[in-house]
């Protein structure tokens, strides 16, 4: 194998790895890490972390139980609040501040049922 061939092989390998990296990163974000969520649940706890807590606005009802709910459902809900597709004043504001990774971590945290 000539040096030029070797170089071209190395270049192709490096290029394909670079291209593949974001895909791996996205997969990692999709899985979600419950341990990471511990740093982020402070804003959830204010309502969902108080037993029997009821939202006072715009209607009075219990905020839903999240422990044990499926991660896919929770991340879909947060993304729908974030995009404005699902309407709730407080949840819209909170979800808007979350990254894809935050959403995946929080969904994994509640689904795991800690």
């Amino acid at each position, binding site marked *: 194998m000539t040096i030029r061939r070797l170089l071209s092989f190395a270049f192709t390998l490096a290029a394909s790895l670079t291209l593949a990296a974001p895909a791996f990163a996205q997969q990692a974000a999709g899985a979600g890490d419950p341990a990471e969520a511990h740093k982020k649940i402070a804003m959830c706890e204010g309502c969902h*972390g108080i*037993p029997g807590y009821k939202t006072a606005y715009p209607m009075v009802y*219990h905020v839903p139980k999240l422990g044990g709910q499926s991660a896919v*459902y929770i991340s879909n809900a947060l993304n729908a609040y974030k995009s404005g597709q699902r309407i709730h004043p407080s949840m819209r504001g909170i979800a808007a501040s979350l990254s894809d990774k935050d959403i995946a971590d929080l969904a994994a945290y509640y689904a795991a*049922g800690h």
Partner: protein
Amino acid sequence: MRRIFVVICSLLALLVSAALEAKGNADKGKARAVTKAGNQEPCASCHGADGAKPVAPENPILAGQYSDYIVKALSDYKSGKRKSAVMNGVAAELSKQDIEDLAAWFSSQKSSLHFQR
């Protein structure tokens, strides 16, 4: 005399709170969840038996959820405030009483759903 007044007031308060809290009938809700002409299992076919084991992770667990939250969700699906290709159609078929009954039924069932800090 005063004692009687206190007793009457407490009884009235109990009656009012019972009327406000327990509007739904769980047995009627169960019947509504399982059978409806043309659709044998309008709820269970997606949310699983008793709403405890959904057939796909996109569908939430309903068993053990707060009843007033279920009422809120179904009412918003019915009015179109909350959007879902499937649930808007399902909720459109429900009366306000159906919604109260279904919420009473699902909230009284057991599942992995729980309060979590």
